[in-house]
């Protein structure tokens, strides 16, 4: 079978699997967040932590829950790393340095999973399991909770309550993340992924580090986290041993973001609203995949041509399976890699960068993808309203000054952080020494780092040395701002939407469940990113691809 046909069949199988899961999983998640009934284990948790599950929260309280929870999570994860020598099963891997521990704690709590350390030499089992696996589950659950709170804002009417964060978080963990991650982990075990509490295995006379891989791999992909338990991430044969596990890992990172569009449609009582968002996500993903595939199979760099674009790729994956993984990991906020993006061609590497700079909505992270695209949809409705000169409405809610301001704040944070961060870094003399490549590609490494941090992606043009205090701290701050400012804006938006009464639609209302609206939203996504980032992209990947 020829390579292109095999690659296309693989894409087709992935789409069939996603299509089969979207409705049942999406509707299940809608039930999870609308039912009044508590599971027994949840009721027990509420009693232990002394939360009244029947009380709704106003948006500032909900937001305080998100921030307070994330703050204590960062502190605990920092302490676990610093105190590693005192923890069991740490294999003498020592205390993690303060700058790395700071960066890593923020990275895993913000669902970024940027890694400035070599995991198999730095972390033992306790930090991996009780620290990182935990945040792999929880940061994803926080993302789902925030997305659901925003959807509730559209559904609710004349109330100042948008749900209870602790209930949403608990249900996201107990009913979604943990059961599905467990099933996924068992399937990964069957496919040959490792799972060991030992420090290493002797294979052919060499001792290779081992780790509790399968449990973390499942949730790393399912929760669009992306932090590898090994340095090579999903390129490591212990994490991703064959083409079947590879396809399954790609499926895992896409399935929740895709299904959440169904959850949204079901919750607002018009499934076509969700289908339109899915079409936008899917369309962008397909365009990115096509562009990257074309670029990588037609490399322009002399070294790339000489090495057949195989530098930094695994034999079992080749080009198509590496591209499919890379476009999916940067279109979601995962950031896991099964090949080294730094070694992709100028054009294909540029596509992964652009995928993040679009705001990660193709199809975006767990929860973050849905609320990110809803914010862009609000901007699209607002633009359409400006064109015809009437107050814009979306899903029966008027979009006034407060709503549009919140949406604008939410989408402006990421570009600000990326451009200021990358600009500052490139202006500093030390940065040139940290780069692994020269000229345009060196600039791309810096731009990629801040794009990845501010979008909570976590993948890297990994040749760049990011262990200096400057990079550890500024990238850490970029992750914090890129995560929590949009979350605050989105929750404020949810609060002000919930307070409104629904307005009746009339023939002049923009139909947001029609293909035309999908085109408008996709256009908005591309336009916002293009206007903001074209100059920066021209200096990096575009210059490299045209050279």
């Amino acid at each position, binding site marked *: 079978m020829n390579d292109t046909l095999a690659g296309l069949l693989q894409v087709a199988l992935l789409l069939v699997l996603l299509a089969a899961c979207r409705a049942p999983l999406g509707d299940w998640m809608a039930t999870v967040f609308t039912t009044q009934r508590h599971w027994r284990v949840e009721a027990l948790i509420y009693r232990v932590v002394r939360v009244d599950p029947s009380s709704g929260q106003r948006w500032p309280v909900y937001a305080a829950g998100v921030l307070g929870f994330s703050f204590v999570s960062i502190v605990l994860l920092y302490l676990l790393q610093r105190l590693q020598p005192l923890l069991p099963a740490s294999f003498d891997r020592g205390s993690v340095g303060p700058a790395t521990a700071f960066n890593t704690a923020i990275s895993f709590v913000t669902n970024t999973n940027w890694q400035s350390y070599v995991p198999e030499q730095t972390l033992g089992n306790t930090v991996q399991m009780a620290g990182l696996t935990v945040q792999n589950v929880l940061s994803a659950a926080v993302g789902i909770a925030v997305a659901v709170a925003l959807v509730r804002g559209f559904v609710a009417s004349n109330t100042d309550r948008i749900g209870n964060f602790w209930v949403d978080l608990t249900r996201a963990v107990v009913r979604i993340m943990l059961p599905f991650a467990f099933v996924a982990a068992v399937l990964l075990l069957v496919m040959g992924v490792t799972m060991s509490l030992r420090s290493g295995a002797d294979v052919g006379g060499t001792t290779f580090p081992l780790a509790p891989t399968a449990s973390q791999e499942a949730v790393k992909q399912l929760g669009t986290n992306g932090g590898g338990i090994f340095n090579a991430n999903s390129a490591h*044969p212990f994490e991703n041993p064959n083409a079947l596990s590879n396809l399954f890992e790609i499926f895992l990172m896409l399935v929740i973001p895709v299904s959440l569009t169904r959850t949204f449609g079901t919750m607002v009582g018009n499934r076509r609203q969700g289908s339109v968002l899915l079409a936008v996500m899917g369309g962008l993903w397909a365009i990115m995949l096509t562009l990257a595939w074309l670029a990588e199979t037609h490399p322009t760099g002399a070294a790339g041509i000489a090495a057949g674009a195989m530098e930094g790729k695994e034999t079992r994956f080749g080009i198509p399976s590496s591209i499919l993984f890379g476009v999916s990991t940067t279109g979601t906020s995962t950031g896991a890699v099964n090949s080294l993006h730094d*070694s992709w061609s100028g054009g294909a590497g540029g596509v992964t960068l652009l995928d993040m700079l679009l705001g990660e909505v193709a199809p975006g992270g767990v929860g973050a993808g849905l609320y990110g695209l809803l914010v862009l949809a609000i901007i699209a409705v607002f633009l359409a309203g400006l064109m015809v000169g009437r107050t814009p409405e979306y899903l029966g809610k008027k979009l006034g000054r407060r709503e549009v301001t919140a949406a604008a704040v939410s989408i402006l944070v990421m570009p600000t952080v990326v451009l200021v961060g990358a600009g500052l870094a490139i202006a500093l003399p030390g940065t040139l020494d940290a780069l692994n490549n020269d000229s345009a590609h060196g600039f791309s490494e810096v731009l990629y780092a801040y794009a990845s941090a501010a979008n909570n992606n976590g993948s890297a043009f990994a040749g760049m040395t990011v262990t200096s205090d400057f990079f550890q701290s500024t990238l850490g701050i970029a992750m914090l701002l890129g995560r929590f400012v949009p979350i605050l804006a989105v929750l404020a938006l949810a609060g002000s939407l919930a307070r409104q009464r629904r307005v009746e639609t009339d023939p002049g209302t923009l139909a947001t469940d029609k293909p035309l609206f999908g085109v408008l939203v996709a256009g908005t996504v591309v336009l916002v990113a293009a206007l903001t980032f074209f100059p920066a992209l021209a200096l990096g990947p575009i210059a490299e691809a045209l050279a």
Partner: protein
Amino acid sequence: MFTTLRRQAGTGLAVLIVFTVLCGLVYPLLVWGVSRIPGLSATAEGQGPVPVVAVDPVAADAAADPYFHTRPSVASLPASGGSNKAQDSVDLLTVVSQRRALIAQREDVAPAAVPADAVAASASGLDPDISPGYAALQTVRVVRVTGLSENRVQQLVADATDGRILGFLGEPTVNVPELNAAIAAATTSRQE
């Protein structure tokens, strides 16, 4: 505002402790328990039916090298990793050219005959697989050095080759440690 934040953080700490037990101990240990099932436990410990990680074997005598070689690795073994060099990197072009010349000399072929995966470092640095093309290139030398028949070696290469899963997933691969073990066994039994 700060009172709310402090109160919510307090609840957050309690929730975090509960979930650390649930997600950080119960969940991974349950998965570990499943991995102890016979049939899963070997691969779970990195001891699959065939090795999934490999380090390139070094021949005692370079002039009589009996091994099939893996792809280049730039990892700090046994930790994993790759070069992260860009496709327009001059450094990478130099290294690739050097690798090509060395392999062409070792296999006694024209440099143009050396396939891409032979000169490109893998992402993990532990890649046990090579392309069927690179295996075919090395077959002539292995036949000469081991004294095995060409048919025999080609048969062993075929045994160590996996096609695409389901016919379309991934790429065809030849597992190098599995192949070298088979070659060594065949060589030993022939000499006895």
